[in-house]
């Protein structure tokens, strides 16, 4: 990473992917999976900012993912024939989700670690109920039948642009005064408070920003698969998100990226039909892995880098 300037590396990677995409050397299935990996990285980086960097344990990440997806999709669906709606709806997904997270965060982030977890879990369940009943507000939301008719806007450029933007934003945040404040807050909130850091404001900001990332990921997801269903945003998905962050290592950007890539490729790699009983064992290995990790290596497989 350090040998070539990162700017060149980013450009080079983009060009390679672009060539592979346009020449169809990567078939549409692999293209879809690569975009999906990008989306998952954005989504999990958001949680890493909230939990890994600032120590606020949130189980609402799937809910924010869904809010971003539904917010963006309803706009592009209602105004299908204007390209101006793309930046507008992206804006709405990012800031809308961020604003909701901010408003939720103000009261909820006063809570201590495990209480915060439960409160955000409750929020995730409430959001799912809202999605199920959303067709009562606007029939276009589709409610429990799922939302159809979303245009397919997600492509390599948009996904790549946001992925790089999110990584950049996070890196610069962490290496700034703000990031150091977050670190202090994560290690000892009371001390940080006494030192004169406005911990509450910092926490809420990190929470809102990390949730905005989930919102953007949601927008990209909605316009890649062009179909939304409330069951995609159940609170169990938040646990998936958490698993990726923990496996990659709390507070490690590269760790999260690698873990997300490995995670998706494992799922897709296992698409070869194994006997169903083997697939079931997978869900027994995951939690065991999680327990052992927590006891032996709570800093993640890759640890801090």
């Amino acid at each position, binding site marked *: 990473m350090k040998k070539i300037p990162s700017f060149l590396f980013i450009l080079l990677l983009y060009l390679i992917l672009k060539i592979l995409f346009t020449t169809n050397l990567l078939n549409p299935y692999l293209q879809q999976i690569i975009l999906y990996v990008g989306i998952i990285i954005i989504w999990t980086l958001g949680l890493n900012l909230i939990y890994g960097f600032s120590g606020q344990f949130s189980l609402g990440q799937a809910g924010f993912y869904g809010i971003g997806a539904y917010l963006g999709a309803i706009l592009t669906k209602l105004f299908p024939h204007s390209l101006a709606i793309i930046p507008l709806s992206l804006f709405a997904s990012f800031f809308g989700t961020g604003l909701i997270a901010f408003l939720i965060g103000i009261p909820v982030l006063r809570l201590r670690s495990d209480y915060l977890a439960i409160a955000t879990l409750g929020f995730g369940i409430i959001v799912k109920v809202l999605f199920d009943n959303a067709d009562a507000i606007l029939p276009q939301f589709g409610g429990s039948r799922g939302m159809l008719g979303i245009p397919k806007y997600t492509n390599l450029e948009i996904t790549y642009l946001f992925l790089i933007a999110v990584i950049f934003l996070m890196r610069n945040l962490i290496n700034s005064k703000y990031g150091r404040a977050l670190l202090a807050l994560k290690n000892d909130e009371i001390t940080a408070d006494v030192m004169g850091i406005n911990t509450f404001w910092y926490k809420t900001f990190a929470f809102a920003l990390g949730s905005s990332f989930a919102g953007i990921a949601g927008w990209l997801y909605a316009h890649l698969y062009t179909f939304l269903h409330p069951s995609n945003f159940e609170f169990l998905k938040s646990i998936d998100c958490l698993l990726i962050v923990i496996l990659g290592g709390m507070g490690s950007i590269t760790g999260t990226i690698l873990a997300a890539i490995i995670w998706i490729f494992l799922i897709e790699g296992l698409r070869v039909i194994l006997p169903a*009983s083997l697939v079931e064992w997978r869900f027994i290995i995951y939690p*065991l892995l999680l327990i052992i990790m927590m*006891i032996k290596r709570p800093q993640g497989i890759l640890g801090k880098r």
Partner: protein
Amino acid sequence: MSYLCQQLINGLQLGSVYALIALGYTMVYGIVRLINFAHGDIFMIGAYVGYFALNVYKIPLPFVFPLAMAICALLGMTIEKLAYKPLRNAPRINLLITAMGVSLFLEYFSSLKFIFGPNFLAYPRPFRVTNICLGGLMINSVTIFVFLIVFSLLLLLEIIVYRTKIGMAMRAVSYDKETSALMGINVDNIISFTFGLGSALAAVGGILYGIAYPQIHPFMGIMPGLKAFVAAVLGGIGIIKGAVVGALIMGVLEVLTSAYLSSTWRDAIAFSLLILFLIFKPTGIFGKEEMEKV
């Protein structure tokens, strides 16, 4: 009017099953400050033990309860020893994540074909269901049975916690772990005992739940577990009578929501209530303020 009373009875029945689960949450939290996420799954396993005892081995009902209680108590203690004890001084969140891991493990392990299997099972009814009419109100034998069992268990718990040595030790540990250890209380044993006691209550909850709502499956513990936790928070976490009152409120509230609004919003209302309580009165109805120690 009779419609409202009928619905209240429905709510109290649901609430008393929640109470049995909420008690385990509250006792464990009071002692080790852990939200034992896997508690709902112990409740599930209790229901399955009851199912096999009643259906396969044809054990008479009075013996089924102690059997399920013993098995679940052992399970609860084992989980504590293997998964939670190594993390006793770790950050609280790591404990919570471990508990989630244990919960997922129990769910998926139970759904394996050679354990319980993934399908829904119909719960056996160990006695005939008869309806008793009291001037427009209908109470059936299941409801009465649930009330009796829950009430007698609460009495038993009251005696254990407030009238025995071990109960006194439990209260001491929950008040101040370090000092209790200095006073010669074996803290590890007390924690283990608390897990066992909570799990045994959850096991009874599982059997009653199976009898009242006669269908079980490996993932049945998730929602009741979460709802019971909400109930424990309502009443004030760590407080025994609070858990019971919170659970009854919760059950009645859910049923009334279904009866007068719409059951679609039931979960949303339950969890909104949780968030409101956590924000405005995190100590619950009966709780007292705790200062954070530096």
